[in-house]
């Protein structure tokens, strides 16, 4: 019985890791998360990926630009995202999975809008769905 419990426990722990690993992309620091609050400068609703450009104050008070990507519109619409989700000037808080090379770029996993509504990047948090426009990362 104890062995069974250990096996069940191990599978519970291992499964999400397998999912993450299976869908890793070459450029992302898979599993890492950063939270940023900033001002939207552009929401680019496009193939192969949508991009959210964001000005964020760094530790010294300087404004730096971050860019978060999502999957393409058809893969985001089912999770409540739209062309109107963001507009320039919006103050938002986002969770990104950053790229490995230290650039201020990441996969956009979640966004909290000015009205408090939270958008989740649906499947992309673990299972990176596809790629219209092409392949993608």
């Amino acid at each position, binding site marked *: 019985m104890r062995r069974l*419990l250990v096996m069940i426990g191990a599978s519970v722990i291992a499964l999400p890791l397998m999912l993450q690993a299976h869908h890793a992309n070459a450029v992302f620091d898979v599993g890492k998360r950063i939270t940023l609050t900033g001002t939207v400068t552009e929401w680019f609703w496009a193939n192969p990926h949508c991009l959210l450009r964001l000005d964020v104050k760094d530790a010294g008070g300087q404004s730096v630009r971050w860019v978060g990507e999502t999957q393409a519109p058809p893969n985001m619409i089912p999770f409540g995202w739209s062309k109107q989700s963001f507009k320039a000037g919006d103050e938002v808080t986002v969770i990104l999975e950053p790229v490995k090379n230290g650039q201020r770029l990441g996969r956009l996993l979640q966004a909290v809008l000015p009205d408090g509504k939270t958008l989740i990047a649906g499947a992309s948090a673990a299972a990176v769905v596809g790629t219209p426009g092409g392949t993608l990362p």
Partner: protein
Amino acid sequence: MTRRVVVLAIAVMAFSDLTRAQLGFRRTPGAVYDVDFEGRKPGPAPRRSLSGTWEFANGGAEGIQADGAKAMPSDGRPEHELPYTPEGRQAFMDHKPTYGITQVPSALTNDPMPGCDPQGFPRIVLHNAHTEEFLQAPDKLVILYQFNKKWRVIWTDGRALPLDPEVPGWAIKGAPPPESRWWGYSVGRWMDDYTFVAESNGFDDRTWLDNAGRPHSDALRVVETYRRVDADHMEKTITIDDPKYYTRPWVALDRLSYRLQAPGFDIPEQECVPSETAKYNELFANPAAGVGDTAK
């Protein structure tokens, strides 16, 4: 102890629901899926009919196939290793996909698709596949694909496939024969009242089979089998037969289930747009791969 087992079992069940959510049941707006009709038994299949608009029966994410053909993803598992010939393996290694076991950063890919080169067949159904509409005429079956609003004609008028893709013999009234095509040449017929089989050849070998960089040569032959299961469902199977690159045929889609949509269902638009791709590369893909400047 029994209670602990029950608690653990509940945790495992809850987690599997979480897993399903993570993997993402994707609902195309306006579409219906099997989950919407649980407990209801479909009516009988109509004879010799595939007409209608079809969406994946188990959710819109079924067709994404980011890591390669659904039945044979590029995941390093021995059972998914394709039966390459030496030439086929070399062609696979020459491809630099952004997914699968040979993935590279997207800025370094040589995948023809991100630049919006034609996706071609069969990649249209082996990567990023979406809703399809089937239009049946007496002499042909036409399939409309959502991505880039492409279509294919599968002739059912009794003609044979071209023997030589470079000399198809399909030319109408003396017109010069076309060369190999991004979408190949396709013919089909009903094997019985509920099974339609199409064969295609004459493909341009610049396309990839899937998103993981699986290659094909100009000798590629594709067999599609559509089985009308009942009033609401059909299944699609795709078999790849390319003796130059693979030592034996292999199944890329294995009875993937589709659900018939209501007559008024409007297929969403999804286009590969070169200018959008260029902006994406400039702002994200290139700096993410260390090519170009920091985030702009």
